[in-house]
């Protein structure tokens, strides 16, 4: 059904964006604080993994 797919698509997009923003933001903050440069990348990767896990929980389990 078109509406279901549309809604699923934008939910997934929202989760991925939140994941990158939140954990990437924490990584960036730690980088600034500790004077490192790789924590932003680690944060972004954690964020994407979390978001994909969440997408799987929402849409993949049924």
């Amino acid at each position, binding site marked *: 059904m078109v*509406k279901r797919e549309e*809604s699923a698509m934008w939910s997934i997009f929202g989760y991925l964006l939140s*994941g990158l923003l939140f954990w990437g933001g924490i990584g960036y903050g730690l980088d600034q604080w500790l004077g490192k440069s790789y924590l932003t990348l680690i944060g972004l990767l954690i964020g994407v993994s979390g978001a994909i896990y969440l997408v799987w929980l929402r849409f993949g389990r049924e």
Partner: protein
Amino acid sequence: MGNVRRSSGEGGFVPPGSADFELPPIFGDNAYTTKPIFLVFLSIILISLFFIVASRRAAIVPSKLQFAGESIYGFVRNDLARDVIGHDFLRFVPYLFTLFTFILVNNLFGIIPLLQFPTMSRVSFPYVLAVTIYLVFHYVGIRKQGAIKYFKEIMFMPGVPKAAYILITPLEILTFFVVRPATLALRLFANMFAGHLLLLVFILGGEHLLQGVIGLKLISPFAFIIGIALTFFEFMVQCLQAYIFTLLAALYIAGALADEH
């Protein structure tokens, strides 16, 4: 209205940009009298008139106008509200119907000759609409389930190992309270902004080519033809964006009403 945009300035072609969306006030220095504000009022007048006339003297055998009005209403009521929200959808129909017609008419202003400015390409209008949706769907969620249960359902999905909550709970909170309403507004804004800019590029470009040497004059019709084709394309985008905005609003309300998201 008033000022005419010209394609060439002192240094040749002036490419369209975000400055083309910052229209000067019409009356003096009053910043509340810009074109988008008038377009919003015009849209409200047009929508009200249309549906008042269409629903007056409603007959069993409908006139063409009544049929048109009822088709739009029926579309929002059945295809958006009933299909998405399910039972108890009727009390959201007025809101969704207002949202849909308001956005649709304001988007269509982008291609109506002489008006030719999509109101929603000024970002504050979509923001305000998104704020109303934000208030509505959190309010109905809290009313239906109680504040504690509602927020608990958002933050802690059942059937997930406890350690995983550290990873996903912040994402759920951010998605529900920031990303969803923000993307809702920005999607509408960006589509209208980009569409208007695209039309400006081809039509102003065509006009500028007309002022060039004979070779350039011969090319200019192609720019205008593409401009006209894009106008039809924009019509499609404008309808689609009004639909998607209302659909997502209905989906968020449905999500807040459902016991499990």
